[in-house]
């Protein structure tokens, strides 16, 4: 790890300005990905901008039918929030399954969403629920926000302030976690949204995606068996030493069925 200067701004605008001043500047939220990445020498930073001092980034609140979660809200807070448990219990379940106890005590929703790891859990929830990412500049629909492996629509100096979820949607998440890392080998978030059932998949492909095959099957028949029997093509699935593409494709159908069982129970 190379030396860096440390900055603790009080506002998002200040953080954005600091970020734009240097090409090797990076913001840190919970640091659960960034610090290991720096240790391994996979990223370099000359200026570290800590978002922890920005009060406006914390907290969970409802505004009408929207559940707004500040970017610096930790996974543990989402998992145990009475508001989330009452109005989007599927999201609380997802947060409770991220990493481990200590990681959930540091890691944040904003960090997870901005990083868009292809096996991260939150992107599946955002995509299935049709959430909105609120930045210091604009609002971005989840559909437009995630742009493939580690890719997002965030521009230079643009930072996430909060994520807004439509509340009171029946939803559930099921994942097959890698037993070593805890990351999803396939994770499926199923939501019974206004426009019909939505199925978003993480961990199996190069980035989060909606499985239109599963959505079509579940529109025909909203039953776990319908999800389980969808033959998802292995093309486009990740293949590595943990699992083959065919295995991951199979897992997606099984996880979709499990999420639906949970949702309908």
């Amino acid at each position, binding site marked *: 790890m190379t030396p860096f200067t440390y900055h603790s701004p009080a506002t998002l605008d200040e953080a954005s300005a600091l970020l734009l001043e240097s090409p090797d500047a990076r913001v840190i939220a919970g640091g659960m990905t960034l610090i290991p990445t720096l240790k391994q020498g996979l990223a370099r930073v000359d200026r*570290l901008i800590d978002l922890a001092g920005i009060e406006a980034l914390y907290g969970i609140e409802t505004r009408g039918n929207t559940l707004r979660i500040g970017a610096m809200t930790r996974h543990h807070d989402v998992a145990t929030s009475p508001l989330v448990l009452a109005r989007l219990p599927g999201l609380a379940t997802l947060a409770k399954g991220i990493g481990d106890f200590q990681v959930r005590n540091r890691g944040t929703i904003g960090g997870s969403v901005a990083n868009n790891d292809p096996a991260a859990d939150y992107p599946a929830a955002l995509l299935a629920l049709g959430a909105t990412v609120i930045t210091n500049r604009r609002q971005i629909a989840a559909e437009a926000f995630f742009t493939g492996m580690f890719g997002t629509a965030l521009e230079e100096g643009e930072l996430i302030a909060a994520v807004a979820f439509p509340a009171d949607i029946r939803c559930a998440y099921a994942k097959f976690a890698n037993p070593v890392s805890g990351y999803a080998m396939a994770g499926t978030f199923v939501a019974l949204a206004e426009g019909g059932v939505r199925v978003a998949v993480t961990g199996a492909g190069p980035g989060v995606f909606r499985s239109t095959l599963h959505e079509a099957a579940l529109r025909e028949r909203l039953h776990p068996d319908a999800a389980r029997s969808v033959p998802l093509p292995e093309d486009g699935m990740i293949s590595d030493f943990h699992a083959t593409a065919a295995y991951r494709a199979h897992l997606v159908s099984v996880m979709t069925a499990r999420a639906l069982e949970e949702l309908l129970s």
Partner: protein
Amino acid sequence: MSREPTSRVEIEVNGQIVAHDVPNRTLLVDFLRDVLDLTGTHTGCDTSQCGACTVHLDGIAIKSCTIFAVQAHDKVVTTIEGLDPDGRHPLQTCFQECHALQCGFCTPGMIMAAASLLNVVPEPDAEDVREALEGNLCRCTGYQPIVEAVLRASKELAQ
């Protein structure tokens, strides 16, 4: 090369305020061990997997190998040395009584993670304990005695 950037870090560690100038890239675990000589907190994997470096930050368990010391500025840190002045916290005695350690390397992290659990869930069941200790690896015990020790300690603390 210009001098390495440092920050003044002021932390309440085990009830005492400490203040030092440290390079910004100093990890909290290295600050505790090398600057404060609190070597009860262990560096195991150094990749946020094993949990041997677990301490409390403002009362909750975190992995001190995955936070910079400067991020703990103005906060409260408790290490295994600060859990009980005599080293006789119920978790510590129950770990001894239940044979919940063999080599002992993971034990400080196990105990700090368990203590954090008991702060929020005073009467956990075995499932709660296993879930809370998911981020702590032990290569000796097979975990069963650790779970027993935490459950026994929770009953002692509840009395």
